[in-house]
């Protein structure tokens, strides 16, 4: 047995190295193309800093949470068991000539860094919430001047306080901006 090992050790070492490497590389190429096409790499920002992302500077200016049980919630007509989270951000396109971003906004419920649930802004149709004057509800890809973005999300009232606003711009994938609220 030992003689056989001594004579064939080079081959055995090569197999021991190459076999896991082949499997690993195959998996890595497939998984990286999967993760590369989706929003999987958050650039986490604390709410008080400005961040440059997709040729614009983003700053979070305000976060409000209105409960359905409150009087304001009742006025808006929030569904039972929900809260309204209103996030306001200031977007300053840097005028670098590149197209200012068009984006998708999602409110994520975070457990550390993993996303457990997410809500979109589109579910606000059945309620009576009027956006503040002068603000936009989605990113404007033609804007050259700074503008204010206000998004309202109807979330479940058991959503934790650890929330994040995810801004996804297709040209920046897999990176995306996450403001911790």
């Amino acid at each position: 047995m030992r003689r056989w090992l001594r004579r064939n050790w080079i081959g055995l070492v090569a197999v021991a190295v190459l076999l896991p490497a082949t499997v690993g590389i195959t998996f890595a190429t497939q998984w990286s193309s999967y993760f590369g096409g989706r929003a999987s790499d958050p650039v986490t920002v604390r709410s008080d800093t400005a961040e440059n992302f997709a040729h614009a500077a983003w700053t979070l200016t305000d976060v409000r949470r209105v409960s359905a049980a409150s009087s304001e919630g009742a006025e808006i007509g929030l569904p039972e068991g929900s809260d309204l989270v209103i996030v306001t951000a200031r977007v300053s396109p840097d005028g670098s000539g590149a197209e200012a971003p068009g984006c998708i906004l999602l409110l994520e419920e975070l457990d550390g860094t993993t996303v457990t649930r997410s809500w979109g802004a589109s579910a606000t149709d059945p309620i009576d919430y009027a956006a503040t004057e002068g603000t936009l509800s989605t990113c404007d890809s033609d804007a050259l001047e700074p503008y204010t973005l206000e998004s309202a999300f109807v979330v479940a009232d058991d959503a934790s306080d650890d929330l994040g606003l995810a801004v996804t711009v297709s040209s920046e994938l897999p990176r995306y901006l996450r403001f911790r609220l």
Partner: protein
Amino acid sequence: MTRTTPLWRHVVNGAGLVVILVIAGVVAHTAPSEEQQQAAIPVRGQIGETITGRNIRATVDGVRVAESVEASNGWAGPTSGVWVVVDASVEARVAEAPLGYARLKVGDVTYSASTRPGQATIAATSLSVGIPWTGPLMFELPSALVASDAARHAELQFAVDDDTRADSMLVIPVDLNSIDIDEVIETERPVWGAR
């Protein structure tokens, strides 16, 4: 003269070979087919129970059968069969999505929730996460089928994605034979948030 292998060794080899072949045969025949590997993961429950899947949660409040329906938005449904009206409360659990798969299965045949009533049914609404939509789902079935034997073991199936492979699917058994057929049913407006 070289020693020949004793007879008992031949017998043992032969028996070992037969055993290995039998095991190989059993493994090959019982290996899951592609359909079984990719099948939806059923989460079963009864009418009235809140059933929780990975990305969907629903409660079926009741099932009624009628020859015609008057929906809350004024739509009146003519059909050459019957309408099975399922009152349910459905919410998503992970991300917003429409109720992509809402089917009533009787025997081998599946029926999908009709979108003809428009906003009066929850079949086309986008489900919110954690906030349920409560409203009717209407299935159009041939009248003969509702009275048949297979209808005693009908199943309601709910899933978020139209492609139900490898994800949760809520399954609720329904006995359609035991439900009286009304002439007209009036349905309520779908409500967001109530349970």
